[in-house]
């Protein structure tokens, strides 16, 4: 129950193939690829000192945010952590303002005031990236509370890491969402490490979804390699929230290929372990699936060329933008 491996136990058949089509999968592959390239571009800029502070990359976990958000309606709310570039992009935020924000530019998504950990976008109902572990879970419950209060049919997705499952903010948000039946889907991206801490050193039982039991809350737990599977399984929870208002706690087992942040060499993991997971790369898996589904080479090529241009353009935009220049207007709203 508390061995380092037990979390890898896959509740359902890993060989299971979820039905999909090129039409459904291609756009998701495009998003995953764009996020991968966006993160790589940020890493590059960071290593040349163009981006500072903490930079947490989601490389390896793209299928989770992309699959989950693919199952939402455009006005559903999303609340995320400091590892949220991909979530913002999947929600519809263009690469340009995201990268410009990381560069600390005036054209950044939040004017250079928030940075990598605090992307917010009102237009796409992206309620933000937060830096205090667990502190954003009640905020997500609050957005869901507002939807229930107004009966506006919206659902809120809240993403957090497995490391957040031990902190009070998560526990209280969970308890209140269950008690008041708030339309929120709590998605634990279990990438098996909280900074340098493996699951078995932070959880008595390596199954975060069990937290739902005491609250009579619906729960699910599955492997996050297949973006379509993520979309389907989280889609069920979103449907439940929208129709019955019932919240769900979902644990998606995944893996980050890089360190916790750019400053973390990640020495606490063996090369073999990392390689094993890279072989399962959800991005490659998705691409292969597209090929198996018979996507035209030309389409695949143009899609990938397209992403390349988009990210190169975003980098240029970020580089060429003027630096951030004001902060006083954003302290107190007049």
């Amino acid at each position, binding site marked *: 129950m508390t061995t380092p491996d037990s979390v890898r136990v896959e509740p359902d058949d890993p060989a299971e193939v979820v039905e999909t089509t090129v039409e459904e999968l291609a756009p998701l592959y495009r998003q995953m690829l764009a996020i991968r390239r966006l993160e790589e571009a940020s890493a590059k800029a960071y290593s040349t000192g163009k981006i500072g502070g903490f930079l947490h990359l989601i490389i390896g976990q793209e299928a989770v945010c992309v699959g989950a958000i693919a199952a939402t309606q455009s006005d559903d709310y999303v609340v995320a952590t400091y590892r949220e570039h991909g979530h913002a992009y999947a929600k519809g935020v263009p690469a340009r303002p995201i990268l410009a924000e990381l560069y600390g530019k005036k054209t950044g998504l939040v004017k250079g005031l928030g940075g990598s950990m605090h992307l917010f976008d009102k237009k796409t109902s992206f309620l933000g990236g937060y830096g205090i572990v667990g502190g954003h879970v*009640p905020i997500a419950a609050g957005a869901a509370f507002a939807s229930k209060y107004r009966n506006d049919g919206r659902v809120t997705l809240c993403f957090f890491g497995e490391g957040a499952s031990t902190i009070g903010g998560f526990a209280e948000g969970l*308890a209140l969402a269950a008690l008041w039946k708030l339309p929120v889907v709590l998605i634990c991206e279990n990438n098996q490490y909280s900074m340098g801490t493996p699951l078995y050193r932070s959880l008595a039982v390596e199954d975060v979804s069990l937290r739902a039991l005491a609250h009579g809350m619906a729960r699910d737990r599955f492997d996050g390699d297949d973006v379509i599977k993520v979309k389907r399984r989280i889609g069920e929870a979103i449907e439940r929230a929208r129709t019955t208002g019932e919240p769900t706690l979902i644990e998606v087992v995944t893996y980050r290929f890089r360190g916790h942040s750019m400053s973390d060499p990640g020495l606490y993991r063996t090369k073999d372990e990392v390689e094993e997971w890279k072989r399962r790369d959800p991005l490659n898996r998705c691409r292969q699936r597209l090929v198996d589904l018979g996507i035209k080479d030309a389409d695949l090529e143009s899609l990938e060329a397209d992403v390349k241009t988009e990210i190169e353009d975003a980098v240029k935009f970020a580089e060429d933008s003027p630096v951030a220049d004001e902060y006083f207007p954003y302290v107190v*709203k007049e």
Partner: protein
Amino acid sequence: MAVISYREALNQAMREEMERDPDVFIMGEEVGHYNGAYKVTQGLLQRFSERRIVDAPIAEMGFAGIGVGAAMVGLRPIIEFMTFNFSLVAIDQIINNAAKIYQMSGGQFHVPIVFRGPGGPAVQVGSQHSQALESFYAHVPGLKVVMPSTAIDAKGLLKSAIRDDNPVVFIEGETLYNTTWEVPAADAGELLIPIGQADVKREGSDITLIAWSKMVWTCLEAAKELANDGIECEVVDPRTLRPLDVDTLAASVQKTGRCVIVEIGWPVAGFGAEVAYQMQRHCMDALDAPIERVTSDDVPMPYAKNLEDEVQPQVKDVIAAVKRALYLE
């Protein structure tokens, strides 16, 4: 004019604002079916139903955060802390989320929320339940901090706080709920007092006493006694600690040349130190004596009544400080 209590004034303010704006709701422990631990929300559940008067379990961090999230998407939550002592388990939501989201989001999301409840020492409830935490909140940019001393201020300022687009920490005097004051009758229309305006509670020419919340009453009493000795105190109540109305305070000190700052909280880095700094900065040339501060003793609040009175500022302590500032002792 009608004479109403501080408690009724708060109740009226919330009732009127909830009638006016359907996005305003109240959430907290015992606010509904129990009508509030201090009965401030008396009758609101019957009037507005469970949808808008939400009884919460004991999870301050959770429901304070729910308020922040709801405010981000356009509602106007009033979060009641049964007492501000319990805000310490939720303070991260107030400081790291409520106060910063407007800035972190580059101005895209604002957080129109009121965190309210009684603060300051109560009577014989021990150190965990008897403390004044205003200097914590007043320290934090992004927040507004309001501490009314009278029923009329309580009503007018709470209504303004509910309409404010920023997070407002609204600290009520735990021992003031039964105090009364003249207030326009509820039907006499809007009573709005702008946040950030100090109020001269008593005019005087010899010395300025600056105090807020319960200490205003202590100062008024001291002023009355001192008047018998021919000493005329001006009692100025900032009412709002953040933003602080330095001009009104400084004008009074410029006039009297002497200043005593009275607060019920701990001395070290208490808000009174900030007021003292501002006064020496703006009035140094006008000051005829060092600024005096009267605070509680630098200790956790004891339980025994006699010790509690020793620890907290009393009328006699204010009088002594005034006499020191006037070189009468």
